[in-house]
């Protein structure tokens, strides 16, 4: 349950939004001329809440909204006429569901029969039994009206004097004050007369008290609710400026339930992190502007380097401060897009549990580093490959309990899933204490499927990584979990698509370790800047295997095809960048130029370039938003001098050079 908490938080936030919407729609509903679209909107709200509730096992909410949904549906189909009573009842349902969601948020159990009465009424209405005559309904319509009339603001004086022991009970007055702020506008005054002199001050005690004036449309119960957890640890008075109208029965009912709930259990109130949803486009615009700022700053800095010591010292100081602030600003903006990997990690225990139960294995999943942050887009695309790898570990890695006992291992297998930051990348490790990769079996399989030459003798490391080849599967039994041969090669392709690398090392009999290394963001790429003639291009580092200067006899001409180069017995296609890009004044003799050996998928290519300029992290920009796509170019970036440089698309180059070869041959 705990691992699902983050999603649940999101769901609960959404629920509150939906309930507010629903209430607004209900209030706007004109009974005499019902707009079907409005009913549809209300129905959608109820439906969304129900769907989420089902997913999170919040049965009470699901059952309640189910009935609600049924009623709304029959209204849509004009089976039930929307009457004032019905609308009032629906409004009351909103209150009840709100209460249920709040309870779910605090992770406490609902009291038995909560909202049951209303549920029965709703059912009755949905069945078209016309409950106008029922005594409760008349009552409820009054209540509904009254609670709406209560909306006018009232002024409350609250005296909140915590006992010294308040902090020791794990309560934080600040949170309470913030909570109050949620109810309305607050004026807070602290009284500090109880604070002792420094020598006598115990930092773990709370000496400060507060006097609060709260303007709110909420009831005293809502205010008291805020202090629910500290009620025993403070002196509290809550007084309203004028006489309070008597509360209606229904609200009182809810309150009594609420008190019961809290009395059952006294958990720390779940923390509500306040957040706003921002359009990604706005963030990207910020990122763009920061990028420009960085370039301007670099330009200014370069200018100041020409000054001699002591010249324009104020200006120099300003520039150095500017560069510091710029860097911080850049980091802050990039951090906006970052999210903890927790949202994916938290899905895994369930997967492990389900599959291991299915396979009759006992497996414990240990996760660490869930709070490691990575760009949102990376998170979105990391879920699938990670799930697949975990499945793989459960299915192929960990042995069955009998085998484990026979091997002298603990019956329960362990899978460690961890995330960490290392050198500007995120490293995700999946370590299991299972059987490890059976190299002999892998090798035999690879030979059998013709994935490697029958006589080649790969090293242990190479052998382990054979499992990433397409069409490879060594599972003895093809189960419905993994082992259909669409496994690890897809994982590798997904990870590479994210600019990442996946590797495996195994210790036969002891277990395997899968390591995934990913860039922190898809917006930034590690690139090698190369020069071809007068043009600079960027090759993604993840595609580069090595760089070499061939001897002239290593490059062989093949009639009607591209040239090939012999790299330690491997024949690799040579691609002359200047030819396919029509760049003049570039070196065309490979033995005088350099060959950058790149890999995309399983295909290797040697790109002929004039010079390597250097390695740099670049921000990826779309070329296609303003121009037509260019073959062989995946995007562009802006270098430190403000000039645009093109990022090569290795896959695209491959098809481009094929076309070129045919053209030349023709």
């Amino acid at each position, binding site marked *: 349950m705990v691992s699902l908490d983050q999603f649940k938080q999101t769901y609960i936030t959404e629920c509150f939004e939906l309930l507010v919407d629903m209430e607004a729609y209900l209030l706007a509903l004109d009974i005499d001329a019902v707009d079907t679209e409005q009913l549809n909107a209300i129905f959608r709200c109820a439906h969304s809440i129900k769907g989420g509730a089902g997913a999170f096992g919040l049965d009470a909410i699901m059952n309640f909204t189910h009935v609600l949904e049924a009623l709304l549906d029959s209204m849509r189909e004009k089976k039930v006429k929307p009457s004032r009573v019905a609308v009032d009842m629906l409004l009351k349902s909103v209150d009840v569901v709100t209460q249920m969601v709040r309870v779910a948020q605090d992770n406490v159990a609902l009291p038995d029969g909560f909202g049951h009465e209303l549920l029965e009424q709703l059912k009755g209405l949905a069945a078209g039994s016309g409950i106008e005559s029922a005594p409760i309904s008349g009552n409820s319509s009054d209540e509904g009206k009254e609670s709406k009339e209560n909306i006018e603001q009232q002024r409350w004086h609250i005296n909140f004097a915590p006992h010294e022991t308040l902090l020791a009970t794990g309560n934080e007055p600040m949170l309470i004050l913030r909570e109050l702020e949620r109810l309305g506008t607050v004026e807070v005054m602290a009284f500090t007369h109880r604070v002792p002199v420094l020598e006598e001050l115990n930092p773990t005690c709370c000496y400060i008290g507060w006097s609060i004036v709260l303007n709110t449309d909420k009831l005293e119960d809502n205010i008291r609710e805020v202090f629910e957890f500290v009620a025993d640890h403070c002196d509290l008075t809550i007084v309203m400026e004028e006489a309070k109208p008597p509360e209606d029965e229904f609200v009182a009912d809810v309150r009594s339930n609420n008190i019961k709930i809290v009395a059952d259990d006294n958990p720390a109130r779940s923390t509500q992190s306040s957040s706003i949803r921002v359009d990604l486009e706005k963030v990207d615009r910020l990122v763009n502007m920061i990028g420009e700022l960085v370039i301007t700053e670099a330009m200014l800095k370069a200018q100041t380097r020409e000054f001699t010591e002591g010249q324009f010292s104020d200006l120099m100081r300003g520039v150095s401060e500017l560069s510091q602030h710029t860097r911080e600003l850049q980091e802050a903006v990039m951090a906006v897009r970052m999210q903890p990997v927790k949202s994916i990690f938290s899905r895994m225990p369930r997967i492990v549990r389900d599959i291991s139960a299915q396979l009759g294995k006992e497996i414990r999943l240990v996760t660490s580093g869930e709070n490691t942050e990575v760009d949102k887009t990376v998170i979105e695309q990391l879920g699938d490959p990670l799930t697949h790898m975990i499945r793989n570990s459960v299915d192929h890695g960990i042995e069955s309990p009998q085998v484990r006992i026979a091997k002298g291992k603990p019956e329960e297998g362990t899978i460690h899933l961890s995330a960490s930051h290392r050198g500007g990348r995120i490293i995700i490790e999946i370590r299991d204490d299972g059987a490890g990769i059976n190299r002999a079996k892998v090798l035999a399989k690879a030979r059998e499927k013709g994935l490697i030459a029958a006589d080649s003798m790969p090293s242990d490391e190479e052998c382990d990584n054979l499992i990433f080849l397409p069409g490879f599967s060594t599972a003895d039994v093809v189960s419905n979990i993994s082992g259909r041969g669409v496994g690890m090669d897809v994982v590798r392709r997904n990870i590479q698509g994210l600019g990442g690398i996946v590797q495996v090392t195994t210790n036969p009999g002891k277990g395997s370790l899968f390591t995934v290394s990913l860039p922190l963001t898809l917006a930034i790429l590690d690139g090698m800047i190369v020069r071809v003639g007068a043009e600079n291009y960027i090759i993604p580092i993840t595609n580069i295997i090595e760089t070499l200067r061939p001897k002239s006899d290593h490059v062989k001409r093949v009639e009607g095809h591209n040239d090939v180069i012999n790299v330690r017995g491997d024949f690799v296609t040579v691609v002359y960048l200047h030819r396919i890009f029509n760049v003049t004044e570039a070196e065309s003799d490979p033995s005088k130029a350099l060959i950058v050996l790149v890999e995309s998928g399983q295909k290797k290519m040697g790109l002929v370039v004039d010079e390597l300029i250097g390695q740099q992290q670049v921000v990826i920009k779309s070329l296609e938003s303003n*121009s*037509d796509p260019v073959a062989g170019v995946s995007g562009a970036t802006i270098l430190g001098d*403000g000039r645009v*440089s093109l990022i090569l698309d290795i896959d695209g180059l491959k098809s481009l050079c094929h076309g070129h070869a045919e053209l030349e041959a023709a």
Partner: protein
Amino acid sequence: MADNFDRGLDKENIVQKNATQQFLTFTVGGEEYGVDIMTVREIKGWTETTRLPNSQEFMRGVMNLRGLIIPIFDLRTRFHQGMTEATAKHVVIILAIGDRNIGILVDAVSDILEANADQIKAAPEGDTQVDTDYISGLISIEERMVVLLNVEHLFEAHHIEKAMAQAA
């Protein structure tokens, strides 16, 4: 004919607006051209661009405009008058065409011209010497003659292909 049809539509659009329209005018090789001022995003001096491989001749490459990557087109080349020897004195006009931003390289910006619908004349027809698809109208004021451009037609792939076929 599709050409006439297109042009007719353009003219209609202009006529419908009735009120005066403003045009930014500029020169390329002694000729004066104009574009609807509402499409102009900004005007900036020429800076070195990055060439895009295997692109059309009049495509001068891309330029960085505050983090956006903008393609720059050479109008002179587009009008088959050779390539502009661009210097810092040459001007790039950034235009918003549809949801794209593009830049056109011109010799100099001259004026902002105000004209009402009846001052705008339809482009001459029957002149097969050049592709005239991109001309949306003509304005003649005193001694000046301004060719109003439909930039969208100038650099859209299918219009260009047709133009190239005509030129060949």
